[in-house]
Every structure is written in C-alpha cells, then in structure tokens.
C-alpha cells in the first residue's frame, strides 16, 4: 500500500462506526466508573448519524467527507466527546481538503492537525487522563515510524500500538480535565473512556488501511 484512496477512507469511517457500535457498552461502562455513563452511547449516536449522512453521498473528496463527519459529530454527539471528535474530524478534513488520495505524509499532516485541534479545543495536557493521552503518542509514533523509514502500513500499526499504550497508561492517572477530574484521586485505577475511543480510532485506521 502506497496511498489511501477515497474508498479506503469511507471504509475506515464505516469500520469505526461498527467498532463503536460494538464497543458501545464497554465505553459507557468505562465512563460510568469515572464519568457519567454516556460516552459509548454518545459516540454511537454520532457514528450512526455519520453513516446515515454519508449513505450514497460519495463525493470523492476525502477532505469534504471527513469534514461532513466532523460536522455530523459536532451536531449529534454532544457532551465533551462531540466537540472533541467533531474537531478531530473537521481538522482531518481541513488538512485533506480536495484530496482523492492520501500519501503517508498527508496522513502525518492530517493527524497532526487533528491532534492539535483536539488540544486547542480541550486544553488538555499530557497525563490529564484524556483522549490526548492516546492521540499524542499515536501521532508521534506515526511520525517517528515514517522518519525511521517504515512503510505506511507499518507506521499505522505503530501509531495504533502507541495509542494503545497511551490508553493503558491512563489507568493509574488522576484526571485533571473533564468530568473525571471531579473524582480527584478516586479517578486513578480506571481507564479513560475517551482515550479508549481514540485508540479504537487509530486502531481502526490501521486495521482498515494496513490490513494483512
């Protein structure tokens, strides 16, 4: 694989919707431990709306489609997840505007813009026990892999693996942003739901685009 096509992007979006549907209860469960028990429900409502929105609207423009995903998430997810995932996809879209293919460097730029967008929106720092704890290592590992000369597929796999580690590393953390922060010390010992859905996103990217 040298580049990702428009159809690959659509397949990723569909696969992410499937993953979220499948992991809905798990994400909600994680959110019930340190939040308000709705993260899976919210994300699933959003991704279902995305599927309905995209259905039969193949524009061929990767950026436009990702922006539509972002807009749809913004207006259907709500809570913290809505603006954050909405921003993530809006930024992916802005960075890939007009493109019908993504080369490894395009994804690097898009991912960087998306992660910046999430951080600008939520003002989270690393170790605040948020989505950023999965996204930032995922972005960094991808970039490092490309610099190491890894293949596109390999870089995506390393990105997902780093996000997974980042997600797991949220377990001992004390939350400092979002609803979980109200728990103080009691938030330690639980995996962050947003970091989990962010890992699932990068994992779905890898599974869809770097599938064996």
């Amino acid at each position, binding site marked *: 694989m040298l580049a990702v096509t428009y159809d690959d992007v659509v397949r990723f979006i569909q696969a992410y919707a499937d993953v979220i549907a499948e992991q809905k209860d798990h994400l*909600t469960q994680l959110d019930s431990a340190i939040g308000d028990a*709705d993260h899976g429900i919210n994300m699933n409502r959003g991704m279902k709306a995305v599927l309905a929105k995209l259905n039969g609207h193949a524009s061929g423009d990767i950026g436009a489609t990702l922006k539509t995903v972002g807009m749809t998430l913004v*207006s*259907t997810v*709500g*809570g913290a997840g*809505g603006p954050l995932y909405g921003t993530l996809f809006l930024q992916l879209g802005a960075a890939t505007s007009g493109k019908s293919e993504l080369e490894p460097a395009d994804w690097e730029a898009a991912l960087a813009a998306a992660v910046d967008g999430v951080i600008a929106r939520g003002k989270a720092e690393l170790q605040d026990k948020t989505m950023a704890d999965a996204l930032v290592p995922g972005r960094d590992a991808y970039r490092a892999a490309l610099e190491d000369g890894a293949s596109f597929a390999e870089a995506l796999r390393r990105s997902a693996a780093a996000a997974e580690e980042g997600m797991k590393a949220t377990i001992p953390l004390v*939350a400092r942003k*979002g609803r979980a*922060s109200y728990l103080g010390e009691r938030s330690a010992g639980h995996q962050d739901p947003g970091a989990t859905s962010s890992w699932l996103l990068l994992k779905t990217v890898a599974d869809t685009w770097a599938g064996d």
Partner: protein
Amino acid sequence: MKKLINKPDDVVTEELQGIEAAHPDLVRVFYDPHYIVRADAPVQGKVALVSGGGSGHEPMHGGFVGVGMLDAACPGQVFTSPTPDQMEAATKAVNGGAGVVHIVKNYTGDVMNFEMAADLCRAEGIDVESVLVDDDVAVQDSLYTAGRRGVGTTVLLEKIAGAAAEERRSLKEVADIAREVNANGRSMGMALTSCTVPAAGKPTFEIGDDEIEIGIGIHGEPGRERTKLKPAAEIVEIMATAVVDDVPFKQGDQVLAFVNGMGGTPLIELYVVYNEVAKFLKGRGVTIARNLIGSYITSLEMAGCSITLLKLSDELIRLWDAPVKTPGLRWGV
C-alpha cells in the same frame, strides 16, 4: 429500569412534545435541532438569554423559558451537553438585536459546545456574551480539575438575569448581573440514591442501603465523601457549613436560601431540610430574605437534595421579586 417512558431514545423528543402540548401560551418548541423559545420571541430590543444543557434536570432549563427568565433553552440528550447547532439556531431565533447571553454551566462538554456556538453566532454578527456558572463547592482543588460544576445557582441566575433583561438593560449589564449572581452563589448537593440514565438502563453508581453521597453532582458525579446515612440536621450542617464558609457568608448578610430536590425527593423532606437550613443560618447570624423550596434542578429520579445560598443585595432582591411566567417558575403575573 423502571420509568414512565416509551423508548429510551425517544425520551427527550417526547418530553419536548409534552412541553409543546402543555404550554403553547408560554413557549414554542423546535425539533430539528431541539430548542425551546418563549412564545413571543424574538423580543425586539431586549437582551436575550439562552441556556441549555443535558436533559434530565427538569424543569431546568426548558421549564424556565418565558417572560422574565430565559428566551431559549437547548436540551441535550439526557445528561449530555446539547450541540452547537442547537445553540446557534436558538440564539438566532431569540436575538432581538440587543445581544444574547449564553448561560453555561461549567462542564467540559457544555463549555466546549457553547464555545463553538458562540463562535458561529459571532461570525454571523450576533453579539454573544457567555456567562459561566460554577458554584458547586463540593469540587475541591478546582485548580487541578475542570473547575467547579454549575449547579443550583443556575436557577437563581436565570431568574435574576432574566428580570434584568426584561428591564431592557444592556448586554453588558445583564451579563454582569449574571456574573454577580454566580460570584455570590454557592451550592452543595447530596444523594440518597442513584439515578438511571434511560439509554444506559442501569444505575449510574452503586450505593449501599445505609449510605449517602455528600457533594454529589447533578449527573451523579461522585462528591466529597461517601458516608453512612445521617439525620437531616447533620447532613445540613455538613453541606451548609461548606457553602457558608466558601463565600464566605458573614453575620448580617441577607441570603436567598434554595433547598432543591434531586428529582426523587418528596416535598415533605425538603421542608424538613429547609427547617434545618433556617436553624443553621440563624445560628450564623445570616438572614434568609428569600427562599425557594422544590425540585428545580434535578438528576432524573435521584433522591437527595442540594442547598444553594445566594448573597443578596437590594438590587438582586428586586430582580428576584420581579414577575416571572414560565412553566416551572411563576409569580407576580
């Protein structure tokens, strides 16, 4: 899960249909996206007040739309912040040319969604001032958290700022009064039982038959301590002390005392609690000049209560007493 609903996914829409059917004289309801505006919106030349938040806190906010209070409310899904498109549509629908105040409870989701909405509205030339409500003293170390949550003071703020807007004060004045209310209001809540988000289907938290959670949030967020059930007098002592010491309220101050039910608390218990609050404040030399007792900012069917104290100036008293005509709060008209 035992609830008087049809399908969990339809609760919010059907609630809105119920409000629309019940109060056509007071409000109009829109569905795509969801928002509620007062029947005569937009009121030309009046600063408009828009609030919103997750559903499940009824009558807040939809029940506070009407003359003398909110111009619009945006209901999210249960316990989930509404989305920027709702806030944008509501803001446009009620903008009477004098600017719009967004009243935002301090939750990450609400803050970010309202931020995006305000950006969209400003881009279209509407003057928007955002006012944050963060009155929950249960949240400690607010430097290391998302900050204090917005709870009971929201109700008082919406009433008082609504009265100021009704007097045709300017955008800045209305926003300043709202901020003054927030600066002088403090709350703390407690829960006897959990609540169940309809879409989740099971209780948000587990709590023993003899336990209570002191400092609970209105979405069932954990509080300061899990303790054994205590007499009302002791519970009030703990909560009121935390509230009073925070502003701090001093001897001679006049306050509005708001004893709020969490949704599953019967009024008889709220009056028992109010009696303890009155005794407590008397002991501190603080005078209750006004009060509000009832379930106004709720957490679905959670049993429990919150106590909000708002330090009152004569001006705030005047604005509190001004007529209000909404489904959830009404007097003077």
